[in-house]
């Protein structure tokens, strides 16, 4: 099985010598670090990566070429986001006893806020969308 040629459609001329996925990862990391810089300079109480997300939304809405650059790494990362949760999940073994001690209230808090949140969000948005679309 041979890999398809690494030519992102509509990509600019730079960075042709590296696989598209590496170039994309580079752009994502650069945006994350830019976000970290913004957070450090402005003393914001949010993670740098979240500011990087906002930066990508802002730049990407204007420059579609940037999105095509980011997709080769961004899409597979998002599809397999779960893999990145395995290490902390394994760590719960070390927190097991604390979890067991407060298991009842935690289950109620998580299950309750899940069910209530889901129903409220679904019903409210459906009602609002219907009202907005009525002629």
């Amino acid at each position, binding site marked *: 099985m041979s890999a398809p040629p690494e030519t992102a459609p509509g990509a600019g001329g730079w960075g042709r010598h590296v696989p598209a996925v590496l170039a994309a990862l580079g752009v994502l990391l650069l945006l994350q670090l830019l976000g970290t810089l913004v957070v450090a300079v402005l003393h914001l109480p949010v993670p740098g990566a979240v500011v990087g997300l906002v930066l990508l939304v802002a730049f990407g809405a204007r420059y579609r070429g940037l999105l095509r650059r980011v997709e080769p790494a961004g899409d597979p990362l998002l599809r397999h986001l779960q893999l990145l949760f*395995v*290490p902390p999940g394994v760590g719960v073994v070390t*927190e097991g006893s604390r979890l067991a001690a407060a298991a009842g209230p935690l289950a109620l808090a998580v299950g*309750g806020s899940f069910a209530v949140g889901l129903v409220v969000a679904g019903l409210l948005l459906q009602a609002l969308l219907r009202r907005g679309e009525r002629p």
Partner: protein
Amino acid sequence: MNAVVHAPAFGLALTLLAYLGAGELHRRLGRPALLAPVLVTTVVVAVVLQVLGIGYDEYLASVSVLTLLLGPATVALALPLLRAGRALLASRAAVLATLLVTGVVSVGVTVGALELFGVADDLVRTALPRSVTTPVALTLAGTLHGVATLTVVLTLVSGVLGAVAGPALLSLVRVTDPRARGFAVGLTSHGIGTSRALAESEVAGGWSSAAMVLNALAMTVALPLVARWFGG
């Protein structure tokens, strides 16, 4: 044998191979939500580490590249948001109102239930980010001085709940609009719920990822303020 087990690459190899196997198992059994690859992988890795007597710190050092990828993955969440952009902008008032009301209600229920039982403040701070997509929840748990590993478990539980029970619960209360169904699942069950919503329809999936991202942004701003009441 010892040389292999304690090689710096062992933890990473174990995790990747377990994930591959879990994904294959999940596909062959017809994608049951309870056997989500992330759960199976976590259990397999934890058991293998216990059996071989590998410490968590050693394992964490081996998989540091996965931890590092959480940053770029968070930035990449901009992609689904931009793809759903036009439809969202057209109904921005409805979307923002839903985001706000649901956020208040679900944080309220979480805090209320835990306070009712007199659970320690640091556990309250740990449970707060549970509806947020995991890369952001992890960072938030750090910001809020919660217990990061526990936050991840509560987040995963929320995700699996959404994938297993979400669609049925929404049908029960007669939410039929695919946009509202997707948005509700994404808001409460982030990435794992989103993959379930995508299976329902493209529209539901798009609105679900958008809800996941908007919720992450809103909670990043709001939760540090809420946590202050609990000594965060």
